[in-house]
């Protein structure tokens, strides 16, 4: 676990990423987002699909070039680095993907999947050393050294995700973007992978950006949590605080929408159901991006984009009426 004294590993300032989508139109996948990640901490990131989580993750690793803003890794702006400097930093920053099926090359053995990562950075002097290192990594993620000669399709989803983790760890990274690493797995297997990620963090001092849409899992694994909506960061706080005292209406709706595995839960019956669907990022609403679904929306929300403000120490929210109580709804909801 990190303490708030830990130094900043990653600093993101006003990051934006636009995609061209034809007919001269652009899609703002990430829109002026700023945050930082401390060394050794897990920053969780949640939000509805398409809100820009993966794009943030990929742009942080410079898998995408940004449209604006900067990302500092250990104080250095990674977008200003030369190709060779970038290659050195790539070792420090790795990614684990959502789909354990699609992210492994089906034609390579596990030995070569993990070995490839070692080769790119010349981390093994010879075949024997490479093999030994692969065996060590497999053991680290709870697989067997004998698994090295098998192909991905011979493994279960949870095992494949472990192979993906071993590949990311092969180069001794400092920072890993975990992009929905457990979404494709069964509940009984998810816990195996999450426990493994936590254990590896403790052992190796890793820093994570943990992207997910399962809010209970994010709370469980994260020190702090960032909530995104339509390309914007709308709230960020210590995870306990975010779940106990959310300030943004979207965060509150999101939390209250999570079905609780307790048939006698009272919270279940007092759910805030927000209306409508996520608007398009090609043609986002004026002002606050959430205003088309927000039960608190007023005139000003359509005119001014609420800035991300630190309402309490370490607790940021972007809402003109942060913290105001929400009306409860009943019955069938209608889409906006």
């Amino acid at each position, binding site marked *: 676990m990190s303490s708030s004294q830990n130094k900043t590993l990653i600093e993101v300032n006003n990051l934006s990423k636009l995609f061209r989508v034809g007919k001269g139109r652009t899609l703002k996948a990430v829109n002026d987002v700023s945050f930082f990640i401390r060394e050794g901490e897990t920053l969780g990131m949640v939000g*509805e699909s398409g809100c820009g989580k993966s794009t943030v993750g990929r742009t942080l690793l410079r898998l995408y070039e940004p449209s604006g803003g900067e990302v500092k890794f250990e104080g250095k702006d990674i977008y200003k680095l030369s190709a060779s400097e970038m290659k050195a930093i790539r070792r420090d920053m790795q990614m684990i993907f959502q789909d354990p099926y699609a992210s492994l090359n089906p034609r390579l053995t596990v030995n070569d999947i993990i070995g490839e990562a070692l080769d790119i950075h010349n981390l093994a002097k010879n075949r024997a050393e490479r093999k030994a290192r692969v065996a060590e990594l497999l053991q680290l993620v709870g697989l067997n050294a004998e698994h090295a000669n098998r192909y991905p399709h011979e493994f279960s989803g949870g095992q494949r995700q472990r192979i993906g983790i071993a590949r990311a760890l092969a180069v001794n990274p400092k920072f890993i973007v975990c992009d929905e690493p457990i979404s494709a797995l069964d509940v009984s297997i998810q*816990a195996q992978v999450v426990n493994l990620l936590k254990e590896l963090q403790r052992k190796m001092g890793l820093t994570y950006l943990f992207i997910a849409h399962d809010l209970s899992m994010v709370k469980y694994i994260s020190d702090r949590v960032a909530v995104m909506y339509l390309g914007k960061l709308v709230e960020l706080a210590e995870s306990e605080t975010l779940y106990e005292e959310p300030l943004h209406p979207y965060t509150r709706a999101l939390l209250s929408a*999570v*079905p*609780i595995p307790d*048939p006698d839960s009272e919270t279940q019956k007092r759910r805030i*159901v927000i209306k409508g669907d996520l608007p398009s990022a090609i043609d986002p609403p004026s002002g606050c991006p959430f205003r088309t679904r927000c039960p608190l929306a007023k005139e000003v929300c359509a005119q001014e984009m609420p800035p991300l403000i630190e309402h309490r120490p370490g607790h940021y929210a972007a809402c003109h009426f942060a913290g105001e109580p929400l009306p409860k709804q009943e019955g069938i909801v*209608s*889409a906006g």
Partner: protein
Amino acid sequence: MKSDNKLRNSSKGQNAQPLLEVEDLHVSFDVRGGEVQAVRGVNMVINKGEVVGIVGESGCGKSVTAQTLMRLIPSPPSRVKKGSIRFAGEDVLKKSEKEMQQLRGGRMGMIFQDPMTSLNPTMTVGRQITENLIRHRNMSMKEAHKRGVEMLNLVGIPLAETRMKQYPHEFSGGMRQRVMIAIALACDPELLIADEPTTALDVTIQAQILEVMKELRSRLNTSIMLITHDLGIVADVCDKVIVMYAGQVAETGTVHEIFTNPKHPYTQGLLESIPRLDDDKSQPLVPIPGTPPDLIKPPTGCAFAARCKYTMDICTRVDPGLFECSSTQSARCWLNHEMAKEVHA
């Protein structure tokens, strides 16, 4: 019981009327490597107005069971080896394809995980709803149109008149799923089979769909078979739960029994492996080690034995069969044998 649960229990008691009865169902697939025994002796009853949740790991036979009930599973490669399915007293397995078509989309509605593959992309949404009504309910075009608009309104789609004229790709994922529900419900089905209806959706949209389903059940007394991975959803909307493992029913009971007093180690394991919003996060999660068995050669004895922390000698040799734990709960585990009571505690 802490909560009222009035609504949930309305369908139980003396006047429970069975709508769907499945007995000793066995379904296999013939594949190159042999026979995949996807469903191995499933029993279940869904009463009128009851919401029954089916949970279990990927590959445990949930979808095959559901698709067999509707006779939607291609044969070959699949075949029903044994068992019976009765819907409103009639033998489903004996029906002709024509009779099945009459049943499907009429008295039996269904919603699938991926609404894009189950809606016809070349037909307007309106036509897809009205065609069904004309076929199954002998409505006139005008009546069917009126009913279609009503249904779209019911599932929370605004501007329904306009929406009727649009094609599926003009709807968002959540709205398509609501259209699927509208189509499935337009003919007032007695049984709605929903296979992971919200898995592809975001939680805020999922919350909307769950509200719609709850409302339907309380207004129209529809029976619902709800397949899901999400125990939270089960706790939220179901009356009864069937936990499946390796093609069998591992445990079944009321939602209260399953969540507060599970009698099968697999059910217990599932409940322990999920984090909860109100949990203390310094506690490590408790995963279930290992993976489910290969259904080409299912183990003799208890299918869960290789992953169970209580495995006894007898477990690997003899299938425990279902033990009755209460009038509503039973579990396929030797620990429920009278002689094993102490081990369990």
